């Protein structure tokens, strides 16, 4: 071939239309010609793009007709939910408020959108904050929020930008109006203006005054951060969003689940906020945020790492003591001092006193922070005036010393965490030690107080001084005790979450079993010791019960990665059950306890089932049913309650079915079905409910089939199929529903295949099997390495083969069996030890042998018939060899031995037939 190939030639080459001879020449050229190498790469890339395009489903191609978004013709009606995050900005088509003209968008955040607007009658420049719907945790949170806005509207302070009007927009969204201020965020202002330490502290004192003013009127900011503090042209700081922040999040159960909403402001969160304890938020929460802001202004850094995983950041906030600001300070990032004198040779202007102030504001425990913004402002002004600061007078060294002392324990924790990560399990013991260290400290300080008192009595000369000392010591002891009890709570929370979270993380690792066993053991010791103290506290008891149940899971929940200690699991479950039984007796939160108890009965039942204790399992499931019935009765039409109830019925049905009590099983499945119908009725849109219904039809059909009620079974399977067909239309990508659909086709096919032979049924059987086949093929195509998918496909090939074989459609049957054989042989080759795979291969050989026997029997005596018998014999012999090998390896079960006998019989028959045919004259 001379010269570079034309594009059409390439196309022929790639589409395989080119003769081999031509191709060889072209390939040689492609390898050597530079410009063609590149062309080749482009071509391959484009070809892969085409392949990808061809994989788009018809539905997706149809979807291309959806118009492109242009901001005007956006399908609002279709995507109502979208409005919340993408509201049309300057135009009026998304949103409008009477009396204001929206002129632009200022900011868009997790809570809502801020617009710039003009108030018609005053021509005043305003900012309107529109909150997104659904941001409230509950209706009560919403009411609280509205009340707080009313209060905030009454704030009038030169350093606060207050809301002056609020209401509901025409779309029913909450909005607040405030003066528009063209200011610069505080941190940027400090950076740009290169403010000195004194300037910053001076500004900061003003901010503290404003915060104090609001606190005195009962308003907590909750979201103080530099971007919420703007500095105006005159250089005055103004705080925004008082009363607006996070109120709506307060009722939320955990912070973690609200990730998106808290992300932006995370670094300024107090430990009580980050730890998800909204009940503990008070004015001192704002003090903490002020501390973080001041720290950041002075050093240019956060007090602890705030990037990385959310959980890590939260742990840093809760645990990591702030690095002393002077150590984080650098010339480039930090503040400078106006005066020539500097504190250290590095030029760092942050001296011990400023450091003390910042660290006191940043104390993890609220009690140890400044108790009011006024106190913080006062210390800042003392410092600026060169007077001693109060934080120092009341034991500044103490604070610092404490900070250092506190340093060691979290450091130990961090170390322990590191070890955890590499497979050790020190954490709980570290926390234990930490707890006992605190206890020891309490005792020691008490002792010291006592001793000091004695000393005072004995030594009259120094009596007064000594008594004062004793008072101090006693105060310290009291404080230490309070701290200890607070710590105890923290330790409890941390221990639980760390042990379980950690366990969840390592449970799938190979070789982690000893570590997990150690965790369980430690956890049990810990729980047992806690149980003694929890007697009077229902919430603590529930926590305990849950922990026991969770430990039970780790020990032996057969549906979780577990340690295989079923006895231990039962024991833990029973501990949990016992506690919960006593809690259900209480009137308060009865439903929640009942639900928890129901869940744990269910768990116990399942473990018992796996242990072969069917009767006990039945009792557990019946207990569960009783509770679920009570729950469903107390909250009628609740989808979750109905779902739970249906599951209980279903479980009982399955146990009965496994025990052979078919009529009872049928009754239970019928109850399950009825409950699921109610569930589907109350959540008509729920795919889950529909799936449940389909599943229950399958269960019903199975039992009806076993009871030979063929007509009823047929109706059940058809109903299941119909539901799944509807579901798949809505959710074409849904793998589980595809799988369900395949199963319902298969079930219906099985039933029809076993029914008396009629032409239309034959057609339907094949149609069902083929529909199932198609889905299973797509599974294999999507995930070629999935052995289950492969086996599922082999099964349906065999079923089709069996059916066709029974109808004397030999060629079809042979073809299906061959396809099945290809799959099962490949599986077995890939995993030769796997007995199930070997069994599959053996059974397929047997099927192939049988069909040749059948064909031979169908033929007239001839040479070809002999040939058939020989083929049959070959397959049966292969099967025999395989089962015999299994027998030799001691892995053959009773059914395998049966097969071996059957196959051997078949071989004898083949030999007889061959002999007769060959010897026939």
């Amino acid at each position, binding site marked *: 071939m001379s010269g570079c190939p034309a*594009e*059409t030639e390439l*196309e022929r080459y790639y589409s395989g239309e080119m003769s081999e001879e031509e191709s060889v020449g072209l390939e040689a050229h492609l390898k050597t010609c530079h410009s063609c190498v590149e062309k080749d790469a482009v071509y391959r890339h*484009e070809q892969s*793009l*085409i392949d*990808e*395009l*061809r994989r*788009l489903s018809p539905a*997706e*191609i149809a979807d*291309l007709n*959806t*118009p*492109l*978004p*242009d*901001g005007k013709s*956006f399908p609002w009606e279709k995507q109502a*939910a*979208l409005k*919340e*995050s*993408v509201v049309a*900005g300057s135009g009026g088509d998304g949103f409008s408020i009477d009396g204001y003209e929206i002129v*632009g968008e200022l*900011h868009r*955040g*997790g809570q809502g959108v801020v617009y710039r607007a003009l108030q018609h009658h005053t021509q005043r420049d305003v900012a309107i904050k529109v909150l*997104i719907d659904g941001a409230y945790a509950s209706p009560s949170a919403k009411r609280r929020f509205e009340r707080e806005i009313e209060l905030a509207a009454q704030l009038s302070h030169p350093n606060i930008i207050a809301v002056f009007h609020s209401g509901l927009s025409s779309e029913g969204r909450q909005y607040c109006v405030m003066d528009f201020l063209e200011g610069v965020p505080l941190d940027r202002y400090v950076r740009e203006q290169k403010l000195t330490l004194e300037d910053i502290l001076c500004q900061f004192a003003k901010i503290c005054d404003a915060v104090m003013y609001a606190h005195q009127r009962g308003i907590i900011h909750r979201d103080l951060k530099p971007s919420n503090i703007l500095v105006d042209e005159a250089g005055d700081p103004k705080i925004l969003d008082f009363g607006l922040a996070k109120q709506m999040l307060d009722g939320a159960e955990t912070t973690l689940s609200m*990730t*998106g*909403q808290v*992300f*932006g402001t995370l670094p300024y969160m107090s430990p009580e906020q980050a730890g998800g304890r909204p009940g503990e938020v008070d004015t001192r929460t704002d003090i903490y945020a002020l501390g973080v802001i001041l720290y950041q202004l002075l050093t240019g850094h956060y007090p602890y790492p*705030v*990037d990385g995983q959310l959980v890590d950041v939260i742990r840093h906030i809760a645990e990591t003591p702030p690095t002393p600001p002077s150590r984080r300070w650098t010339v480039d990032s930090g503040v400078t001092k106006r005066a020539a004198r500097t504190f250290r040779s590095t030029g760092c202007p942050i001296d011990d006193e400023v450091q003390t102030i910042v660290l006191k504001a940043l104390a993890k425990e609220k009690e140890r922070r400044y108790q009011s913004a006024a106190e913080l402002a006062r210390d800042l002004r003392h410092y600026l005036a060169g007077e001693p600061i109060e934080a120092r007078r009341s034991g500044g060294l103490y604070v610092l010393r404490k900070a250092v002392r506190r340093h060691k324990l979290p450091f130990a924790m961090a170390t322990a965490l590191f070890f955890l990560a590499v497979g050790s399990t020190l954490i709980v013991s570290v926390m234990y030690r930490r707890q006992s260290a605190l206890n020891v400290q309490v005792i020691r300080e008490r002792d010291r107080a006592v001793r000091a008192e004695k000393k005072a009595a004995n030594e009259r000369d120094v009596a007064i001084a000594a008594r004062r000392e004793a008072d101090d010591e006693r105060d310290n002891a009291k404080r230490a005790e309070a701290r200890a009890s607070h710590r105890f709570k923290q330790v409890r929370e941390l221990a639980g979450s760390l042990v379980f979270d950690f366990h969840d993380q390592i449970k799938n690792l190979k070789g982690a079993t000893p570590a997990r066993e150690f965790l369980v053991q430690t956890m049990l010791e810990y729980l047992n010791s806690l149980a003694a103290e929890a007697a009077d506290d229902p919430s603590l008891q529930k926590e305990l019960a849950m922990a026991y149940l969770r430990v039970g899971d780790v020990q032996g*929940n057969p549906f979780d990665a577990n340690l295989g200690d079923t006895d231990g699991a039962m024991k833990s479950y029973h501990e949990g059950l016992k506690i919960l039984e006593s809690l259900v007796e209480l009137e308060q939160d009865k439903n929640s306890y009942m*639900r928890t108890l129901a*869940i744990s009965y*269910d*768990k116990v039942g*399942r473990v018992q089932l796996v242990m072969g204790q069917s009767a006990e399992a039945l009792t557990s499931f019946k207990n569960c049913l009783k509770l679920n019935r009570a729950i469903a009765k107390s909250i009628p039409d609740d989808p*979750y309650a109905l*779902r739970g109830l249906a*599951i209980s019925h279903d479980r009982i049905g399955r146990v009965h079915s496994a025990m052979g009590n078919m009529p009872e099983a049928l009754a239970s499945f019928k109850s399950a079905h009825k409950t699921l119908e109610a569930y589907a009725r109350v959540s008509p*849109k*729920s*795919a*889950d409910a529909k799936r449940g219904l389909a*599943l229950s039809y399958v269960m019903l059909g199975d039992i009806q089939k076993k009871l030979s009620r063929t007509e009823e079974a047929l109706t059940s399977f058809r109903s299941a199929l119909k539901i799944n067909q509807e579901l798949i239309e*809505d*959710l074409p*990508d*849904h*793998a*589980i529903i595809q799988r369900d659909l395949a199963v319902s086709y298969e079930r219906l096919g099985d039933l029809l295949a076993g029914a008396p032979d009629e032409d239309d049924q034959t057609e339907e059987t094949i149609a069902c099997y083929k529909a199932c086949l198609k889905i299973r093929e797509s599974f294999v195509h999507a*995930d070629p390495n*999935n052995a289950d998918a492969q086996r599922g496909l082999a099964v349906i090939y065999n079923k089709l083969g069996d059916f066709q074989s029974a109808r004397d459609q030999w060629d079809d049957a042979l073809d299906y069996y061959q396809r099945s054989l290809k799959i099962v042989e490949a599986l077995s080759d890939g995993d030769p030890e796997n007995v199930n795979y070997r069994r599959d291969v053996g059974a397929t050989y047997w099927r192939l042998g049988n069909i040749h026997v059948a064909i031979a029997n169908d033929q007239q005596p001839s040479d070809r018939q002999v040939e058939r018998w020989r083929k049959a014999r070959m397959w049966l012999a292969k099967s025999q060899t395989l089962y015999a090998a299994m027998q030799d390896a001691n892995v053959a079960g009773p059914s395998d031995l049966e097969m071996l006998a059957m196959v051997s019989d078949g071989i004898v028959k083949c030999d007889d037939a061959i002999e007769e045919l060959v010897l026939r004259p």
Partner: protein
Amino acid sequence: METTRPSLLLRLKSPSDQGAWYEFDHIYRPILARFALARGLGAEQAEEVSQECITAISHYIKSFEYDPNKGKFKAWLRTMVNNRIKNLHRGRREIQAGTQDFRDLQHNDDAPDELFEKLWRQEHLKHCLRLIKSEVEKSTFEAFVAYVLEEKPIEEVCKEHGMTSNQVHAIKSRMIKRLSLRMAELSGEQE
């Protein structure tokens, strides 16, 4: 397709660029929603999850300043949606612990990354196709869809659109090049 066109992400930061949000939403909401559905959530929950993610992104894009480049956007999006789905599953575990179908849900978690990858790719493709659709003659696009996507025989396509087979081949080649370019733009390979 490791990164997302930086300009789109940057444009999101600009409050005045409304179009960026539409475009963004148009590409990524379907990915999130379809992923959530395929991972076993109901339609309502899937909608909720994708809404939450979009909200979080809008929040993140504007006010998250520490290190916007840390981690690829796709990985971030995937982690975010996965975490939300897990949270929902965890919540459900309480109520339906160990039921057959719930176990199915858990077992279906085999290859979520591949699934995400597939949806990511598909939605980007679809978006680019829509872009191209708006740029070319209607009949050109239809012939392209019929010949390349639907794999109709060329004679049929020619007859339907009154074109010669050479014209159809040329359309295919031109459109694929254009698509390739668009995809590269969107993924930031050329910036």
